[in-house]
């Protein structure tokens, strides 16, 4: 393959390579260390300056800079083999390569490596926007390749975009088929390096006041799709952690241990649902109360009826689960569990402790006491606010007896404290409550702002009972102004002061619909495309009746797809050739007749010359032949499209020639 005639100096080649690199690197700029991103941008700008002949950079300088970059990566990451370091290094070398690119070989190398660098960006983000980005980037690389392989460079091909666009459109259906047929593995091939990404979500430690940070966030925690009936929204308690240990300030998990399968509690199934859990970089897995059967491999049920995964959730996790109503009739609260769930630190919040003991003596019955405290919250001047007064010490005393304002964490923590002070086993449960129904995708969206803390109280003969003290606050004392203000969605509209209320409401509804539709698309994307895995693959295979040797069948199907696609395109191209040749065939037939009549047919001769020769050598044939040849010329050498009827009439004339 000769590539000397395809130098990089053709018009537009270097600029298009710079653009391709910028497009391919752009998502990485948000994830790589700032100095690497800045270096790649600087190198691209330098390359453009060199192209514009503004600067000249000797090759020894490029070499030194490249070695410095390599050293920089090593010093920064202390390795060059990890994923982060690898991506950083390859992006730097990629831009250096363009700086020193001299010939076709370098250009081709850069463009083909682009495909790989493009994929590294997906390790960080697999959202629907990245799907759009994939197409844009692919298109730009293809345009770069076409320009590189065409003698005119960028200028010559009128259809640079058209060719790559059509190619991409034709590639998409093949891609989709291969995507679903390609055999998937259930686990990684080699251990994945740990990720240092931070996730947002509920922590394993609850200091009253800490969760307020989450309320401002519209970020999605997870999505839930119920199979069949869904519980009412106020009954949706998404259980995350059970916090049993209290040190006076913070609630912690305390001692917990995974349960063996044979010691799972019994229960009656209630709701069936499927979850798309966004990565929160923690190990707990949320589920609708009550939790029993772990939804996935490597997820375990713990003895406080919460789920844990052995690894942190660093990628979107999809699972199907069953909610139960646990039957506590056979379950005794063990001695140490009772101890754990009644434990309180010495000499803290003495006033509340005394209050609790005093009040308990009035009813002297756990269930009654629960009811009593709840009605106390309801009747007394307890307020719900996201901006409560902050106490340094004796937090519960301050809240319960003094300020009487707070939010779920304050209420849950005070309630459990009071129960324990009265000798009733109780614990705090954190997770999410409620959710937003999305009618466009028939599922629920649970956001970070739905984070919630509630409590569980052990009642003899009944078991753990969920009690949500926050729900006991009288609605008139809920300060929801902040709740509505904090979401970014609403922020959007605060600027439109000129809108009348009805207009702004209309706009709000409209915006809401759009965002729900968008979320439905995202949910579909996450669930059906990004969440497609071995389980889903085997699932649909079993639906078509393949329950074993799945990989063999997938292999056959893959092969068949490739062969069929190949045959399809081959036939398509051949059929294009056939249909165009109809005119040619009629003309050939006409030439054979002429030959029989004594006209010498020369293959290299065009129709005009042939006609000229007939006029001179065979004037008797001229009038008839002229009709055919003139029509042939007008069909063949006319720039505009020839109508079907014109073609048909030519074929008729040519065939009737004798």
């Amino acid at each position, binding site marked *: *393959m*000769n590539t000397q*005639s*395809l130098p990089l100096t053709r018009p537009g080649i270097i600029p298009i390579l710079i653009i391709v690199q910028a497009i391919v690197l752009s998502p990485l700029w948000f994830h790589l260390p700032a100095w690497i991103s800045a270096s790649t941008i600087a190198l691209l700008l330098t390359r453009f300056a060199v192209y514009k002949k503004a600067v000249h950079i000797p090759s020894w300088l490029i070499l030194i800079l490249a070695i410095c970059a390599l050293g920089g990566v090593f010093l920064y990451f202390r390795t060059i083999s990890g994923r982060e370091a690898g991506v950083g290094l390859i992006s730097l070398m990629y831009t250096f390569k363009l700086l020193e690119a001299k010939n076709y070989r370098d250009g*081709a190398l850069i463009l*083909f*490596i682009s*495909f*790989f660098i*493009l*994929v590294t960006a*997906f*390790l960080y983000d*697999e959202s629907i926007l*990245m*799907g759009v980005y*994939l197409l844009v980037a*692919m298109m730009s690389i*293809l345009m770069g*390749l*076409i320009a*590189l*392989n*065409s*003698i005119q460079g960028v200028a*010559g091909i*009128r259809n640079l975009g058209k*060719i790559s666009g059509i*190619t*991409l459109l*034709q*590639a*998409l259906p*093949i*891609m989709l088929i*291969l*995507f679903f047929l*390609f055999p*998937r*593995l259930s686990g*990684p*091939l080699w251990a*994945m390096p740990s990720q240092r990404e931070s996730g947002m979500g509920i922590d394993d430690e609850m200091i009253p006041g800490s969760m307020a940070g989450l309320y401002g966030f519209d970020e999605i925690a997870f999505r839930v799709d119920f199979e069949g009936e869904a519980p009412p929204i106020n009954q949706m308690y998404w259980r995350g952690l059970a916090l049993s240990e209290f040190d006076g300030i913070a609630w912690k998990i305390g001692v917990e241990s995974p349960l063996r399968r044979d010691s799972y509690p019994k229960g009656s199934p209630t709701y069936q649902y499927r979850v798309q859990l966004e990565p929160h970089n923690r190990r707990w897995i949320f589920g609708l109360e009550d939790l029993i059967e772990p939804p996935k491999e490597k997820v375990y049920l713990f003895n406080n009826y919460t789920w844990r995964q052995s690894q942190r959730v660093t990628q979107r996790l999809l699972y199907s689960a069953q909610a139960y109503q646990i039957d506590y009739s056979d379950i005794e609260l063990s001695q140490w569990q009772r101890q754990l769930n009644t434990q309180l630190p010495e000499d803290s919040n003495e006033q509340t402790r005394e209050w609790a003991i005093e009040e308990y003596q009035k009813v002297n019955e756990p269930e009654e006491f629960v009811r009593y405290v709840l009605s106390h919250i309801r009747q007394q001047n307890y307020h719900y606010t996201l901006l409560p007064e902050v106490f340094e010490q004796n937090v519960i005393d301050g809240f319960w007896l003094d300020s009487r304002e707070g939010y779920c964490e304050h209420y849950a923590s005070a309630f459990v404290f009071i129960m324990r002070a009265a000798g009733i086993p109780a614990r705090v449960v954190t997770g999410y409550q409620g959710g937003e129904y999305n009618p466009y995708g028939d599922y629920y969206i649970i956001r970070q702002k739905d984070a919630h803390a509630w409590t569980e109280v052990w009642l003899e003969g009944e078991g753990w009972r969920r009690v949500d003290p926050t729900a006991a606050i009288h609605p008139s004392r809920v300060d929801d102004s902040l709740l509505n203000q904090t979401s970014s969605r609403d922020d959007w509209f605060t600027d439109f002061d000129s809108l009348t209320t009805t207009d702004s409401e209309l706009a709000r509804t409209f915006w809401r619909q759009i965002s729900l539709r968008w979320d439905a698309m995202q949910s579909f994307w996450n669930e059906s*495309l*990004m*969440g*497609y*895995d071995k389980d889903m693959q085997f699932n649909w295979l079993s639906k078509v009746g393949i329950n074993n040797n799945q990989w063999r069948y997938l292999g056959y199907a893959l092969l068949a797809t490739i062969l069929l*696609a*190949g045959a399809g*395109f081959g036939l398509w*191209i051949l059929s294009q*050739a056939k249909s*165009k040749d109809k005119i*040619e065939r009629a003309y050939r037939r006409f030439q054979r007749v002429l030959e029989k009549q004594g006209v010498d047919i020369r*293959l*290299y001769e065009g129709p005009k010359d042939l006609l000229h020769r007939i006029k001179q050598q065979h004037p008797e044939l001229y009038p008839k032949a002229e009709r055919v040849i003139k029509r042939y010329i007008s069909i*063949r*050498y006319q*720039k505009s499209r020839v109508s079907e009827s014109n073609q048909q009439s030519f074929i008729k004339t040519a065939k009737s020639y004798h």
Partner: protein
Amino acid sequence: MKIVSAIEQKFFSWVDKRSPEQQEVHLRQKNIYILPTRYGWLMLMILILILVASTNYQNNMGFMAGFILLAIGMLSVFYTYRNVRGLKIRALKPQSVYVGQECSFPFEFNNSSESYRSSIGIGLNKKQVEYCDVDSRSKTLFHIKIKANKRGLLEPKRFVCTSIFPFGIFQVWSWFKPSYGALIYPKPIECPQILAPQSHGQEEGAFAQRGSEDFHSLRDYQSGDPIKQVMWKAFARERGLLTKEFEELVGEQHLLTWESVSQYDKELAISYLTDAVIKAEQAGNLYGLELPKVRIEKGQGAEHLHQCLSALALME
């Protein structure tokens, strides 16, 4: 290495059998070949890398990118093939040149289809090709230059028409053998001696004297026949001996003989004669050429020059 070249030879004799000598080739399935380029293999490696990484990181976007790449690879087989399919290439007669110059072989591409054919390469082999574009429904004339290293007939064994457009992943090509060769004239080199007797320079060296024996007899003849112009044409066609007399009036005339340069190395001698022939033509002289097996009578003009140069080019 021997085995490789033997296989290569076998292969090309098979190729040549499949592509007979012809003035015009029509590129279609039976004479179009296709294989991945080295960048095609590179892309395959990158594709495998992407699929392995996607499997390891359970990254479905990675799979999507990988399969788009695979599909593009598949499609490019057809696109590249379509870029040359149906193209007709006609080899035209090349102009003769001197050794050391570039001989340009003209080709006419005929594209009777609606599609624009981009970057069609043509050359002696796949490593030395030149590219041109062929517009839809049009004919394009394109020259490829081949350096002439040897006098005689320059007859490339085969030409190759190739394309890597649009993505450079696959290369299609077709071999064909044109019926025309190019005649390469010897390289003209000025001789240190004077080969043809000049009007004033006859007294130098033994060579000039020996070579001038014919001229003396000519002179005798001339002195016997004083009628000039009219007589010359008639006699020249018959025996070519009367010209000397004439030359003294119209210009010079000389016969360039092999003997006059036979003491030099053969190729050098041919170059000397070539130079002498060209100089004689430029000076507007009449000249003839006498080689061991060929004798060209005296004459003048482009046709005559070509005749003399051809004789020199083809001398064994």
